[in-house]
């Protein structure tokens, strides 16, 4: 895949890729800082809307002293703007947010998938398959559409790459056109379990609810082998019944026989080149927290005044991701989080959380209004 004629971009990509391909993940604050500030300067030049956004805040490359000062773009902006740091004619791939029929879908335009793939693989291997020996492959059963069915889904693409690079022959996709292929999945789980060792059952959160409901309907509970681990991501998106994470993990424990200590939640989004994972498989016995690669860092923003969130306080999650060389490296999410040691936790609103009044807010309205 060519990166185009921009030598500054080629140089940045090469240095970020080199970091991603290193076998060890040494935290290197100085390296991150230098690359982040350089990448910011590059994107400030190449992405006019982002430059004007920064200028509106009085931020220019020369005024920045550290990566935490890089202005973060709200992820929702990708629904309305093409935030690219390369010419439109070089656009080679578009990932779209899942959205629904009632809301606009965000679009991430990419001129190369190289950084995206180079970032996702070591993270997945480290946090979902930490016990996999080098060169070894594992059965990876995916409850999500295949990349062929959903070519604009970054999650499907991620699973496609993971299966290609790390999957054993029994691996496959078991959600097709929104329908869980239950019989095929149960047969594949049985086959995968016969080998012993690692088995990864991965997919969207709502697809796991489909599976739990199907098992309940059949009156079945499985006892998946001890090497089984689950990776779920993406929330419910109105596709299934909704339940809190503790309740979901309890049901998974009952129906699949996989304890919470072997269930990993992935925190990722279409607009990001890198992903964060629960630490439970990588660091068993330690507090569950989200960890990511050293080329992506999180800052928590005090939700009322926009400054840095005080230690131990809730903050809006902003991410600076060096894998986003082609778009914008600093993203402001709509999620709340709390710092836990070297990682963080994502705190969504519990289903049914009560509002202060009778007005209807935000995305709830748009979701229902059919706009």
């Amino acid at each position, binding site marked *: 895949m060519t990166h185009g004629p921009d030598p500054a971009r080629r140089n940045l990509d090469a240095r970020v890729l080199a970091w991603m391909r290193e076998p060890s993940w040494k935290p290197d604050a100085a390296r991150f800082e230098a690359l982040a500030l350089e990448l910011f300067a590059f994107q400030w030049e190449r992405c006019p809307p982002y430059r004007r956004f920064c200028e*509106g805040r009085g931020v220019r490359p020369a005024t920045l002293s550290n990566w935490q000062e890089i202005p973060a773009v709200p992820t929702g902006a990708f629904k309305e703007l093409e935030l690219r740091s390369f010419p439109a004619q070089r656009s080679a791939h578009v990932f779209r947010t899942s959205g629904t029929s009632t809301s606009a879908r965000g679009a991430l335009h990419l001129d190369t998938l190289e950084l995206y793939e180079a970032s996702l693989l070591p993270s997945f291997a480290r946090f979902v398959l930490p016990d996999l020996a080098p060169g070894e492959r594992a059965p990876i059963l995916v409850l999500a559409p295949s990349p062929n069915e959903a070519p604009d889904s970054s999650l499907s693409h991620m699973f496609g790459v993971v299966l290609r690079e790390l999957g054993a022959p029994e691996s496959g996709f078991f959600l097709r056109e929104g329908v869980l292929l239950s019989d095929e999945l149960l047969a594949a789980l049985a086959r995968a379990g016969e080998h012993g060792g690692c088995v990864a059952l991965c997919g969207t959160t709502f697809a796991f609810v489909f599976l739990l409901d199907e098992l309940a309907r059949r009156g079945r509970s499985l006892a998946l082998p001890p090497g089984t681990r689950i990776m779920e991501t993406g929330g419910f998106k109105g596709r299934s019944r909704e339940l809190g994470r503790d309740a979901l993990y309890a049901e998974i424990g009952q129906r699949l026989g996989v304890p919470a200590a072997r269930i990993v939640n992935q925190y990722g989004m279409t607009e990001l080149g890198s992903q964060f994972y629960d630490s439970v498989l990588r660091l068993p016995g330690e507090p569950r927290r989200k960890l990511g690669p050293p080329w992506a860092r999180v800052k928590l923003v005090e*939700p009322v*005044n*926009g400054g840095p969130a005080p230690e131990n306080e809730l903050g809006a999650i902003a991410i600076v991701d060096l894998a986003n060389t082609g778009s914008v490296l600093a993203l402001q999410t709509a999620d709340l989080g709390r710092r836990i040691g070297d990682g963080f936790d994502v705190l969504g609103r519990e289903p049914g*959380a*009560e509002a202060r*009044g*009778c007005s209807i807010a935000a995305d709830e*309205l748009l979701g229902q209004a059919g706009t």
Partner: protein
Amino acid sequence: MTPEEVTDRLAELREAGVELRRRPASDTLASLAQVLELWRDPGSPWRRRLETELPGVTGFSPENVHEGLARGLAPFSGDALLALARSELGDPARLDTAGGSMLSGFDVTAVVLAGAIPQPSLLALLAPLVLRSPVLAKPASRDPVTPGLVAASIAAVDAGLGRCIAIAPFGSHDEACLSALLDASCIAATGSDASIAALAGRVRPPRRFIPSGHRLSVAALGPGALAGAALEAAAEGIALDVALWDQQGCLSPLAVYVVGRSDTAPDRLAECLARALADLERRLPRGKPDAAAGAAFLYECDSAELRAAAGGRVTLLGGAAQHFAVVREADAAPRPAPLQRFVRVHPVADARELRAALRPLAPHLAGVALAGFGAEAAALARGLADLGASRLCRPGELQAPPLAWPHDNRPVLLPYARFTDRETRE
């Protein structure tokens, strides 16, 4: 509270209701009218306690609570209640007589409250009592104060009536207590659409279920309100409607539609509105939003800023530090409403475009503040009524609805009534 206690309370209320129904309905009505007068009186102990205690539990500023109660309770007079009863029920004696068209309430009504704004809670607690149906109320987690004070104020006015209201404080996730509460023969519930849907699925026939889901309001200004003193007045009125209760109530406008072909009128209104909101921040400071609400506000400010930077016809006035935001939008497309004094100004060319813009919101539409439409006002009002708006008024009046406002497009008292016709043949 345990489920057994909820069941016991329902039984006690049923017994108290038998006693209550031995008294003329006009007695009950007169006592409830007195209760409302107590709540209208800023010097009454109940009102003073509410003003003192509500800011601490809800996060609203004391100034906002004071002003919101003063304006919101002003129309809630005893006379207004008597007039409402006459208007909806006819002669209150229909609750006492044994012939013709008779009315009665349920033996007990469970009231599930939500939110932190007291006036809707006050009315929800009083309405079943007008029909002489005792009330067991589950307070909102956001406002544990109002129901107890209302119950105490009723008991102070009329001890017998006071025995017909009780409070059932239990947690939102206490399924066993909720099941016990839903044994009441009538259940009135306020809450989010999701909460209402969940409750509706649990109410067993033949119980009556009276739901009040979330609603929203908007404002629309015509050419007559877009210049000079009329513009200033409209902006000040809308700002007050936005600021009271920090936009948490369903009668706070989330958006203003500027109707007309002028490209600059939306900018002028946005600027006036921002000035008025800045002024109100000094007089009626915004409360501290919780983390989720604050993050949503910040996120939408950032989004508007970025869209403006991208060259859209978008302007952000105010922001997180100012505790309000006015976003002049390029079009009428609905966008997220983070509340907390965040209002969007949308241009629309004419009344037809206005109705089209509001159509996606119609299922949740409550109030529309209107000004400046002149001779077109009547036709516009008809169109908005057909869309589902339940209240049309001038800017600045949204937060003070009359007692008889048909919230949810339905009467206030009649949903709590049972009807009996006695057909007599001589």
